Every structure is written in C-alpha cells, then in structure tokens.
C-alpha cells in the first residue's frame, strides 16, 4: 500500500508521499517558511502558533493566503 495523502490546497488537489504531517511541515515542504501568510483548514483559521501542533488529514481543504497589492 502506497503511503500518500491528498490535500486540496488553494483549490487544487496535491498528493504527498507521506502521511501524518503537520501544517508546519507542509509550510516547510512548500518553501513558504518565514513568509507572512495565514492558513485556513476546512474553513477554520489555524493560528500560526498552532502550525506545529495541527495534524493534517486526507482530503483536508487548505487555503494559504498572503497580502498583495490592492485598493
């Protein structure tokens, strides 16, 4: 059995060759460490202080947002 997990990140499905990882590990994997961002998991905000303690599960829907130019 392959060890993979699928997440929906910013509306797009993405597969990962691992299971049981946290939001903090995902952020590192996506090269977003140190960037100013906010994350919503299944419609609930995950505070930055809880990234390391928040486990992700198969099918989780994540929104990763940042600030961009706007009026």
């Amino acid at each position, binding site marked *: 059995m392959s060890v993979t997990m699928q997440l929906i990140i910013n509306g797009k499905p993405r597969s990962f060759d691992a299971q049981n990882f946290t939001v903090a590990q995902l952020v590192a994997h996506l*090269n977003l460490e140190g960037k*100013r961002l*906010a994350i919503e998991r299944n419609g609930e*905000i995950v505070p*930055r202080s809880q990234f390391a303690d928040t486990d992700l599960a198969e099918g989780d829907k994540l929104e*990763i*947002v940042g600030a*961009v130019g706007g*009026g």
Partner: protein
Amino acid sequence: MLDLLKIAGKSYQSRLLVGTGKYADFAQTRAAIDASGAEIITVAIRRTNIGQNAGEPSLLDFLPPEEFTYLPNTAGCYSADDAVRTLRLARELLDGHKLVKLEVLGDPNTLYPNMIETLSAAKTLVKDGFDVMVYCSDDPIIAKQLEEIGCCAVMPLASLIGSGMGILNPWNLQIIIANAQIPVLVDAGVGTASDAAIAMELGCQGVLMNTAIAAARDPVLMASAMNKAVKAGREAYLAGRMPKKLYSASPSSPSEGLMTK
C-alpha cells in the same frame, strides 16, 4: 498647526490613504506611496502562489508592515460571509491587526457596493472586535446606520471604483459629513488632484484612492500632486472659504485715491 486624522484612537499626519494595486512593479508602488506621503495603505488578501517562486519578492518586502499602517480590504467579496472570512484571515496574517477596510460589492461590472451585505458584515466584524472603515454608497441614511453599528469611519464613494469620474454628488457627501460623529473619507472615484481637493474642502477627513495614482501616466508625480491636493483642500476647509456671490461691487483694490476722479 497640528491637525491630525484620528481613526479608531490612533492619529495620523496624512489624510491621504492609498491603495497598492495596479502599479507596474513593487518599486513603482513604493515610490508612489512615498511621494503620496500616505501612512495608511490598503492591501488585498489572496491565495499565495504555491510552488516554484519561493524566492520571489513580495509586496511586504517593499512596504514593511512596520513602516505603514496596513488596511486589509475585502475587494472582490460579494457576500458578508466572504468579507468576514477574508478579514479574519487578514487579522491572522497581520498578527492580530484590527483596522480593516470593509467593502462588499454588488455588481462585477460597475463594482457598485451591496449595502445590505455590507451592513450585515459590519455588524459581525464590529462584534468580533475589528475597527471597521467601511466603503459605502453615498446614501446618508446607510452611512448613519454604519456609524450606529460601530464602524470607526465611513467611506462613501465619490463615483464608481476605478472610474475617475470625480465627485458626482457633493450634496450627499455634505449631508453625510454633517450627520457623522465619525470620520468621513471619500473612497473611490477620484480622478485627479482637484477631485481630492474638493473632497477635502467639503469637510471630508481624508481621501482613499488607488487608480487615480496608479493609472496616471506618471504615477509617482500624480502621487505627489494628490499629497498636495489633500493638504490644500484640508487647509481651505479649515480656513473657511469666502461666500459665493453672483457679483460683487467690492473690488480688491481701493476705490479711494484714483487719479481719474
């Protein structure tokens, strides 16, 4: 003369608030904002690019949140729920920052605001502890209701977003200003420096703009013009203009001492 703009308990020297969208690049954004003298700058909240461009510079690299007061907006939101969700994410993104710009649109072509959804979102956000600066139509009754809900500033449109049509209904703005106990800022529709000056002469506490600067042929120069126009308009408002008369039998030069008499 110390004449500060006070919003939600904080004072600002500049009465010009500017957006950060539609510029050629971040360097131009920064140069224009420096020329504008703005201390409060709006930003939008959007999905982060995932993938290859990890080292790519971001807006925040050019406009550090330590130097400016960020005003996250809800541009692109068409429902109260979307607007509230966006600003909760913004608060998390900006470390608990409470000052926000609420706008809920009603039509993708005109970008006219949906005031029913805006009122609903404002109630939720105020209850949730946000300091809400709210973009609104120039309806004096709606503006008053937004104040009663607990918004910290109302920001009626001068004309439609991005239109550059200037102030189409100065009379409504005057009624809103006369009735308001909170700052009234014109947001949207300013096209050039005289529009900003007129808004300030009417008694607005400030002006928020983006396209008027970003879409000028020389955005940095227009930012400088807007900086001066807002200051000039404010001073003219404080100075109190002379009354308008159809004509006056009182010339500026003395009538006495004319050698032709």
